[in-house]
């Protein structure tokens, strides 16, 4: 695949939009019909639009699609399917970690990256020491997931689902 003016979305190359105003979020939802990624605020405040770009979690509402020439984007659709869900997708179902489900794709994309960040020893504001290894405690999860707002307040079960996958007793 040539990376000239294309972006890879869940492994498939797609041409970048002609209009530079199109956010990555709007490209996903409106141009490609990948409506798993949600728009909550469109201003970086809620995390519903969280996707992974080259493995790193970002808010897709605050970035232009044209800036992602050659990048690899993974959305909730790319993490798993109904038949073959990812460990976090399964844990969210088992723990009933949602009510309306609107924030859930963003929560799961965010948590997917967060577990990698903890494994890599990245500190958070809740970490006692800046040096690893980092814990997967409730306090750490709450701080690290603070960019994902849940209007239904399913936080307790979201934390439990993440702890299940991290192998920590909830």
């Amino acid at each position, binding site marked *: 695949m040539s990376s000239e003016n294309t972006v890879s979305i869940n492994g498939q190359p797609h041409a970048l939009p002609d209009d530079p105003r199109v956010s990555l979020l709007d490209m996903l939802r409106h141009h490609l019909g990948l409506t798993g990624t949600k728009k909550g605020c469109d201003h*970086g405040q809620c995390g519903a639009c969280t996707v992974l770009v080259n493995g*790193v979690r970002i808010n897709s509402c605050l970035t*232009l699609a044209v800036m992602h020439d050659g990048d690899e984007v993974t959305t909730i659709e790319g993490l798993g399917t109904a038949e073959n869900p990812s460990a976090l997708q399964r844990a969210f179902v088992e723990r009933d970690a949602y009510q309306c489900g609107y924030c859930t794709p963003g929560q799961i994309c965010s948590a997917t990256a*967060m577990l990698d960040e903890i494994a890599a020893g990245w*500190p958070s504001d809740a970490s006692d020491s800046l*040096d690893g290894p980092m814990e997967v405690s409730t306090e750490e999860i709450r701080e690290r997931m*603070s*960019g994902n707002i849940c209007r239904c307040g399913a936080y307790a079960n979201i934390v439990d689902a993440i702890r299940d996958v991290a192998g920590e007793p909830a």
Partner: protein
Amino acid sequence: MRPFDYQRAEGIDHAGQLIAAENAVAIAGGTNLLDLMKLQVETPQTLVDVNRIGHAEIEDSDDGGLWIGALATNTDTAVHPRVKADYPVLARAILAGATQQLRNRATTGGNLCQRTRCYYFTNIDQPCNKRDPGSGCGAIDGIARLHAVLGTSDQCIATYPGDMAVALSALDATVHITSAHGKARTVPVRDFHRLPGHTPWKDNVLEPGELITGVSLPAPVEGTQIYRKVRERSSYAFALCSIAAIVEMDGDKIARADLAFGGLAHKPWHDPEVGEVLVGQKPGAKLFDKAADVLLRDARGYGENDFKIPLARRTLAAVLAEATGAEL
């Protein structure tokens, strides 16, 4: 969002050429600029994407200090081994700001240049001298909870909202700048942001066409480094008051006190006289109060933000007590 022309710069010189155009603005992480473009607070004609010009490196400098490129992300900086070991106040300040998603995109240059969170500034239906010079200031007699108590003017009482720059100010970092014609200059970070005065639309000393290439930190110093941020909730909120402190003890006396304050002014506030009151003295509640008297000697509240004056005093005492081990 208003239509604009998108240009991707391939290097710093190319970025300089592109940015010299009329009403051209650099875009790095985009987390502040795109937010404001959606609100039509910012309406650039040309966006110059600087993400591929390099300058994302973080490396040791010859004098024992550290160079942080303008395009290094806030995450890159906060997790860098040397930042964690030698400049923990900087790692802590970055981690106390925004969210992981935002820090993954936010860059050194963009973070320094982020604009105020004043609610009148971000609402184009409201008067604001910063956004629309001469239209008045909605905040002075309005909702001013987030606003400044130090260094205000009758034109603007906005605060600089960032955390990273407060730590950079305590660390006495230097901002490296290049003009559209490739002319380089440096500015101490303490002089980079400005007070509003009669020109509140100028947040900092960058001239049109100038770009930040990076920030240099001096060689690390001894002492305890603390970043304390007081906010409305315990995560994901801007500072009401924050303090970056580097405090070194010599026996039972304070040998160094480099302090900078966020959330109180149009710039990270650094007042050398505060440190001078503390150095050479034995720490204690009385001394901390004296330091707060100096810090707040010209403080002025605007009603809703009056609480920031006692809050700054208490936060200073708490930080100094933690740094020196003194009882309050």
